[in-house]
């Protein structure tokens, strides 16, 4: 199947909110990461986790990645 055909078949009207939420979670996680001085584990690790693991990545960062000190 051609790429354009596949794209046309995707029901964008229905799934755009999910993509938007995904994007917001990633952006917020990165904003927080850029402000924070201490994380549990190396920062670069969290960059990849947030970027590559969908949904669960940012949640992991928010719950166990941050350190308040």
């Amino acid at each position: 199947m051609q790429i354009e055909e596949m794209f046309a078949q995707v029901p964008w009207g229905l799934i755009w909110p999910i993509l938007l939420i995904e994007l917001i979670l990633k952006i917020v996680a990165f904003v927080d990461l850029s402000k924070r001085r201490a994380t549990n584990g190396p920062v670069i690790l969290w960059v990849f986790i947030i970027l590559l693991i969908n949904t669960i990545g940012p949640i992991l960062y928010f719950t166990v990645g941050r350190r308040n000190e």
Partner: protein
Amino acid sequence: MRQFWIFARKEWKEQLRGFKIIWVPLVFIFFGALEPLTYHFMPQILDSVGNLPEGAEFQLPDMTGTDVIMSLTGQYQMIGTLVLVLAFMATMSGERKSGTGTLLYVRPISYASYFSSKWFTAAILGIVSVWLGYGMSMTYIVQLYDVYPGAGELIKFLLSYGVWVLFVITLAVAASAVLPTGGAAGAALGVLFIGQIVDGMIGEYWTWTPWRLPEYSLLYLNAGPESGEFWGALAVTVLLIVLLAVIGTAMAGRNSSRAKV
């Protein structure tokens, strides 16, 4: 009472700065949107990723909106509980560890308003997040499914399920008053998930527990639960919430000496 609102405003600001107020609702809304979509597009999803042998055919059940809400509740029972406990596990233990605690504990504060303000803001955030998740799910269900529960039934369900969410949050906040962060998360999740397993095994004989409450709430979407059992479970849950709040308040005061300077 004045102290309560001052603390509540401080909590609110903290949730805002930690982005908790953004990510907790978004997680619930995300799963709320995903669930109806997954079931609606199940045939296409199986087609594209299924790796099915040629000629395999499935008879997929006809899902109604009520079925989707039930399945979403199952998701929230697992992922939602996890997210809520992880989000609120450091409510009090975090302050003891980070040093914010020492700034508070040297002042003549009432631990009742200290605990209740934290509990109140956590409960509002958690319950509203769950409700928003169901709201998102309903907007999809109304568009994609023919049969769906009416507004009155849904509101009854949301209210009674909210009590369960309140129980989860109270447990997490109280645990963080008693134990350090990691222990609090472990204890709260342990109690909640072991309770669910025990409920799955002997729940038939043991009808008045908080763990039955989600199930009874879901019955509101169909015929309505047996009222005696529902109100019994609700009463026990409320009683446990009050008990946990009292324990949490007492332990918040006692543990204040453990705050790191």
